[in-house]
């Protein structure tokens, strides 16, 4: 028992001492390369970061990205605001909401966008094969699963309903994680699901029917998400941030032009099954943010009550 106690005490001491030495992640140059900490969600949307690393676009800018994956905004935004992470990845509705609450955020690069082709986008609304729901209009009064409530996906589903001539107020949204949606649809727990790749391909393969492409219905060539930093990091590490933006530009352009490179990069940070990997619809990787589409998104967010007043989209953008 004494030995156990001694070991426990030793462990505690070790830990406390390791806590004491605060490590800061500023310009820790490794081989002349400046390290930039990037926090992303391990999904198809962020492939250009990995493509850029593989193609050496970050190295060209003397950058060494340290990419960490997180589940979502709950972990990413505070880390960026506190300066623990330099760059984060988020969708634009979240960023607008954050900005409206006074969080000092700044977008540094576009990230991912809709392909703009109805029926051939990387996200959409799926119902069961034999469902009486024929179009987004029929969703009124039905239960629809989205991955987060009061965010980009329910906003864009409402846009689909409006476009099809239905009443978006009647739609009952339920929050479910993408991986759990297929089962809930099958069991009849929900009437429709809004999914993105690779879940879209899987749902369609399992007999689902696509009734609308919600991103396409919202705005032509909607920019969905992007990379952001805190205003503090933007000013204290302005050079690193500028170089990151430049490297991202090149990575986005290259990824948009080379889908095979994207498919090759995906297995390096996801576990997507190989058969799905070859078939899934890739999103667009626009090098520039489509400002008009964001203004539409902002107006919808105000209309749906996510935001109390119209956000200044330009103030958020680079």
């Amino acid at each position, binding site marked *: 028992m004494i030995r156990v106690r001694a070991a426990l005490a030793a462990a505690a001491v070790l830990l406390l001492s390791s806590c004491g030495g605060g490590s800061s992640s500023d310009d820790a140059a490794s081989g002349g390369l400046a390290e930039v900490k990037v926090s992303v969600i391990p999904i198809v949307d962020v492939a250009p970061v990995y493509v850029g690393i593989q193609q050496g676009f970050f190295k060209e800018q003397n950058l060494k990205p340290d990419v960490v994956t997180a589940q979502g*905004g*709950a972990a990413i*935004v*505070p880390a960026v*605001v*506190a300066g623990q992470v330099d760059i984060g990845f988020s969708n634009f509705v*979240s960023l607008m*909401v*954050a900005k409206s*609450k*006074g*969080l*000092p955020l700044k977008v540094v690069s576009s990230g991912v966008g809709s392909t703009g082709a109805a029926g051939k986008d990387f996200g959409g609304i799926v119902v069961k094969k034999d469902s009486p729901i024929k179009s987004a209009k029929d969703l009124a009064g039905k239960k629809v*699963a989205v991955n*987060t*409530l*009061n*965010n980009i996906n329910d906003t864009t589903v409402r846009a689909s309903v409006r476009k099809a001539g239905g009443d978006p107020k009647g739609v009952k*949204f*339920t*929050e*479910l*994680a993408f*991986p*759990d949606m297929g*089962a*809930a649809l099958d*069991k009849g*727990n*929900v009437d429709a699901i809004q999914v993105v790749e690779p879940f879209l391909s899987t749902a369609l393969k399992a007999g689902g029917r696509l009734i609308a492409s919600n991103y396409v219905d919202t705005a032509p060539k909607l920019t969905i998400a992007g990379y952001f930093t805190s205003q503090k990091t933007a000013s204290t590490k302005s050079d690193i941030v500028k170089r990151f933006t430049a490297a991202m530009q090149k990575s986005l352009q290259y990824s948009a032009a080379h889908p095979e490179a994207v498919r090759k990069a995906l297995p390096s940070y996801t576990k997507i099954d190989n058969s799905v990997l070859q078939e899934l619809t890739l999103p667009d990787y626009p090098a520039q943010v489509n400002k008009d589409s964001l203004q539409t998104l902002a107006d919808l967010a105000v209309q749906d009550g*996510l935001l109390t007043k119209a956000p200044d989209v330009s103030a958020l953008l680079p």
Partner: protein
Amino acid sequence: MSALKSVVRLLAVPALLVAVWWTATEGSTDYFWPPLRTIVGTFDDTWFHGRLTSDVLPSLLRLVAGYLLALVLGIGAGVAIGSSRTLRAVLEPVLEFFRAIPPPVLVPILMLFAGIGDGMKILVIVTGCVWPVLLNTVEGVRALDEVLRDTARSYRLRRGSRLVHLVLPGASPQIAAGARQALSVGIILMVISEMFAASEGVGFTIIQFQRTFAIPQMWTGVILLGVIGVALSALFHLAEARVLRWYTGLRRAQREG
């Protein structure tokens, strides 16, 4: 002890901590650590205008249902497992296996069987609460003195009366420890269950605040959870005092006899 004295005892440390929090954050401009003054100021607006009945009440009802179910299951299964060495040996690894699985990954599996309604959320609370009760009951029953057991056997107590007069009272201090642990675990699971397929509830509201960066409101939610914890624990102490008085009386009688 005078009533005043016990009130002072009860409130001195909390008052001190609140004072420290208040002064430490006064004038804070940090977005995620707003001044306590701001948090307290938003409390009323956040919770007392409809959310008490639309969010807090449904959450508490699910919590009570899940907690009571966990107590019944935990004590029932605990007595059975604690009294049979064979059963214990067979089930222990299986139970330990499930106990180690974090609720956020267990919930999707539960949803496959229980859907996404209130039943699923109650089930999530049960799967968390049951462990402290079960484990403590098993240990409590195991620890019963062999002498007492033999006495009971020699007096030819029937199984039912042995359970009521010997096993449950004997194990009750440890069962009480488990039940108390389960209470706060239940509150935590109540929040976690509302991270899935929810549209109302305390946990759901807190997560929404967190996601929409309504940080002072999120803090009021955290404080509310603490207040719920204190209130439920006070209720628990009342119930526990009744149950254990019966037990202490019995123990005293056994000693004197």
